[in-house]
C-alpha cells in the first residue's frame, strides 16, 4: 500500500518515516504541503519536526496549509491519517483529534527512549496486542497532553487512548509520563479509529539498524486492515 508523508516547511522527520515505511515493504512518497491531491494514497502521515518553527503554537500555522483541507476530507471519509509528534500537534490544532499539547512539565526538551503500554483501543493503525509494553523514543518540547474532563472521560470510555507512558513493567504511576501528560496519555485516536496521533516516534525503532523494532507495529495494523478490505 501507498503512504503519503506530508512535508510542511519545518518538518524534519519525514525522511525517517519514509525510511521506516519502506523498510516495512510499503510504498511511501513525500507530499508537499502545498499540494491538494491525495488521491494516490491509501494513508497519510504527518511527520515530526517544527512546522513553521513551532513559533506561535505547535501546529498552529501548518494546520492552514493547502494540503490540510484535503487531509481533513481524507480523514472524514474514514481513510487513515496519523500524526507523529509535530504531526499530532497539527492534527489537534486542526481539530481532527481532541485536546492540546502543552509545554513539557519541567520545561525541557526531552529526547529519550521510554516504555509505553499499548492500550485496548479502536485504533486501526496499531498492530501490537493490548497490554504489550514497548520501547519507543520521544523527542519533543510540547508533548504534555491535556483535555477537559469530559473529553478525557470520552477518550477512556470509547477506547481512544492508544498508548500510555508507563513504568518498565507496564504499570502506570502518576509520574510515568516524562512530560506531565494527562493520564499518561502518549497517543490517542478519533472515535472511528482511523485518525491516530502520538508523541513518540515509532519510525525511529522500525528498522533494527536504528535501535529497535517496536515501532513497526504502529504502522502495520493499518496495512493489514486495508489489505483485508482490499482483498
Amino acid at each position, binding site marked *: 500500500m501507498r503512504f503519503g508523508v506530508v512535508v510542511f516547511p*519545518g518538518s524534519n522527520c519525514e525522511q525517517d518515516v519514509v*525510511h521506516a515505511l519502506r523498510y516495512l515493504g510499503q510504498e511511501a512518497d513525500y507530499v508537499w504541503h502545498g499540494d491538494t491531491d491525495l488521491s494516490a494514497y491509501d494513508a497519510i502521515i504527518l511527520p515530526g519536526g*517544527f512546522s*513553521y518553527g513551532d513559533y506561535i503554537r505547535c501546529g498552529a500555522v501548518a494546520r492552514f496549509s493547502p494540503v490540510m483541507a484535503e487531509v481533513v476530507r481524507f480523514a472524514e471519509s474514514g481513510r487513515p491519517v496519523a500524526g507523529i509528534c509535530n504531526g499530532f500537534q497539527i492534527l489537534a490544532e486542526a481539530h481532527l483529534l481532541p485536546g492540546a499539547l502543552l509545554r513539557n512539565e519541567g520545561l525541557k526538551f526531552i529526547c529519550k527512549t521510554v516504555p509505553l503500554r499499548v492500550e485496548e483501543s479502536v485504533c486501526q493503525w496499531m498492530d501490537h496486542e493490548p497490554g504489550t509494553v514497548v520501547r519507543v523514543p520521544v523527542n519533543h518540547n510540547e508533548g504534555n497532553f491535556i483535555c477537559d474532563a469530559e473529553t478525557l472521560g470520552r477518550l477512556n470510555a470509547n477506547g481512544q487512548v492508544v498508548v500510555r507512558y508507563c513504568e518498565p513493567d507496564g504499570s502506570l504511576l502518576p509520574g510515568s509520563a516524562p512530560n506531565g501528560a494527562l493520564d499518561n496519555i502518549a497517543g490517542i485516536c478519533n472515535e472511528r479509529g482511523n485518525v491516530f496521533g502520538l508523541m513518540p516516534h515509532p519510525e525511529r525503532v522500525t528498522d533494527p539498524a536504528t535501535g529497535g523494532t517496536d515501532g513497526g507495529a504502529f504502522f502495520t495494523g493499518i496495512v493489514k486492515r486495508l489489505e483485508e478490505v482490499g482483498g
Partner: protein
Amino acid sequence: MRADLTPELAPELAAELGLKQSEYEHVVEILGRTPTVTELYMYSLMWSEHCSYKHSKKALRTFPTEGEHVLQGPGENAGVIGVGDGWAVAFKMESHNHPSAIEPYQGAATGVGGIIRDIFTMGARPIASLDSLRFGPLEEPRQRYLFEGAVAGIGGYGNCIGVPTVGGEVYFEEAYAGNCLINAMSIGLLREERLTRAVAAGPGNLLLLIGSTTGRDGIGGASVLASQEFDERAEEKRPSVQVGDPFEEKLLIEACLDLLDGELLVGLGDLGAAGLTSSASEMASRGGVGLDIDVTRVPQREEAMKPFEIMVSESQERMLAVVEPAKLAEAQAVCEKWGLRSTVIGKVTDTGRFVVREGDEVVADMPAATLASDAPEYDPPAERPAYLDEVQAFDVRAVDFGSPAWEPRSLLLSLLASPNICSRRWIWEQYDHQVMLNTMVLPGSDAAVLRIGEPGRGEVTTRGIAVSSDCNGRYCYLEPYLGAQIAFAEAARNVACAGGRPAAITDCLNFGNPEKPEVFWTFREAVRGLADACRVFGVPVISGNVSFYNESFGQPIYPTPTVGLVGLVGNIDRVATASFKDEGDVIVLIGETRFDLGGSEALKLAEGVVAGLPPTLDLQRERDVHETVIELTEMGLLKSAHDCSEGGLAIALAESCITGGIGARVRLAGSMRPVAELFSESQSRIVVSCAPENVMIVTALADRHRVPFALLGTVEGDTLAFEDLFDVPVSELAAAWEPVLERLVGGQVSTEEMAEG
C-alpha cells in the same frame, strides 16, 4: 563618491573601530585617499582578529593539511574529506564564546546556526553536531544560568532544524568562570561531485541575497565581541545580541540544497561574522572578480539603516548566492517554494573592485581582494609564562596518599559524582540525537558513530564515521604542547573505541589575549603540539577556528585547543560501545598504567590543586593501542571498548559497569600504590571486554602491535569488585554518577539570577 570623512576625522573613527594606526595607514595607501565611513567599517571588521586571523595565521600554517582523504583543506567555509564510494563529509568547529557569555541561549543557538551554514554552503547536508562547553563551577548561580541556557540554546536550534546533536564534552573549572566557552562542530554529508565553493565568478552574474531581513542586530559583533577582552563594559555591548531563527535556517538548508541539486548556482556563501562584507569580499577575492552592491536593495527590518550598517550587520540566517541571469527566475522560484525571500542586491564585475552604492551614490569603492587578503599579519612576541615553573614544580609524589581524602572507595564515588566526570545524560537528553536515523552509537559512549547514507532519501550504506571532540584544558594549562597533543590523542582514542581510524581533524583554539606574550607562547606551543600529533598520526587539519581574547578582568582561560576528530568506520555493524555486556566476558586493559596523577581530577578533588605535570604521551604507542583496538573491532571480537581519561582506570571500569548494568571483578596487577593504579590518568589506555574464547586473539594482537596489556578480570555480578581492595554495588556507582547535573542544575530550573553579572 560620497566623501563623508575628513582626513582629520577618519583616523579617529578608525581607532574607535579598533584599527591600529598602521592598519589605518595601510587602508589609506590602498585607496589613495581618505576612506569613507562604510569603507572604514568594512576594513576594520575584515581586518579584525576574528575575521583575519592576523595573530594566528603564521602559526596555523604549520599544520599539516594534506592527506589521502582530503578533498578540501582549510580556506573554505569547511573542510571536506572523502569517506569512500563517492561519499564525502564536510566538517568544521567554531566558537561562540563571547556572545554566549552575554546571552547564553541565543549565543549558543546562533553559534550552532552559524557553523551549520558553513556546512551546507559546501553543498553538504548537515547530519550531526557536537558541542564542546566550558563553564565555571556549578556552585555559582551565574554558571548554572550560563550552562543551562547554552544547552537549551544548542538544543533549541539543532532540534528545530532537525540536525542531531550527537556528542560533545563539558568541563567546569574556575578558569572559565568569567569567560565560558561554547564551541560547536557541525558535520555534513555530500556526494563528492557536489562539493561547492564560496566563490564569485563570471562578470555579469547576479548576487542573490537569500533568507532573513537585515537589521542592526550584531553590528560590529565580530570586532566588538570576539576581538576584545571581557570587562565590566561587556554590559554596554549587549545590543549586539542576535536572536536565532532556526526555522528560517531549516528553510535555507532545504532551499540551498535544492538550488545546488538543480545546478542553479555559480557560488554560494553564508553570511557570518562581518555579514555581507565578509561573505561578499571573500567570494570576490577567491574568484578574482569585482562586485557591485546596492544597499537599498537589501531587505531591511529596521528603519533608516546606514550603508555601513547594512554592510556589516550580522543578522542571522542569510546566504549569498551567485546566479547567472538566465537562471535567476528558476533560482528565485526555488526560494519562493521554501517561503524564503530572495533579492538581487548586485552583480559580479570584471573591475576587481568592491563597489557599494546607496541608490545612485557610491559609498565605498575598494580593491575587492584587499579586504580578505591584505589583512595585516602579526608575529607577536612570545614568552614562556612564569606560572609554569610554579605549577610544574608541584611534586605529586610528595602528596600524603594516606590521608582520608585518598581513601580509594570514597574517592571513586566522589570522582563519579564530580561534575567533570558524571553522566552527561542531562545534556544530551535535551538534544534530538537520533533524527535522520543515522546515529548508530548514541551519546554516552566514547565517540558517536554515524552511518553514511540518506535513509528515506537515497542509498544507505554500512560505512560509518566516528566523531569526538576533546580537550582537557588542565593539561594544556600545565604544559600546552603536551596538553594539545593529549587533546588530539584523546579524540583519536575515543574514535578508536568505536573502531574508527582517524581521517582528519578540525579544531577550535580558545586562548586569551594574543597580544600578551605569555598567552601567545601558550598558543604557539599548543599549535606546535597539535601539528606534531597530527604528523605522527598522518592526520591533516582540514578546518578550524581561533578564538582569542578569552579573558575576564585580565585573567585568561586555560589554553583550550579543542580537537574535533572524524574517523572512518568500515562496518557499522561491528562497532562496540563502552558498556560491559555479558556475564563471563573477560576484561583486558590495552596499554599501561603509570604514576600519572599530575593535573588529574583525583588530585583536584583530593588536594584542591591543578598542578604537576600532565601524563606523558608516546604518540607512537598511542597509535599502536588504537590500531590494536580498531583491528579487533573490525574482526568483530570486542564486546566493549572504553578509554581511560579523567579519573583513570577506576572510572572507566565504573562507567562500563553502570552503562551496562552489570558488575565486574578486577585484580590490579600493577606494582604502584592502589590510588595510582586506580586514578592515574595515564594516556594510551583502552579497557576492552570480549568473550573468553577470544582472549587469546586479543592479547596476541596486542603483542603483535607491541602494546602492553593486562588481563584485569571478568564481567560478572552486580558489583564492581577490586580484589583485596574494596567493592561497590553497581547501583551505588550509578547513584553517584547519574543524577549529578540534574541535581546541580535541573533541580533548580530557572532559579538562576539571570541579571547577576
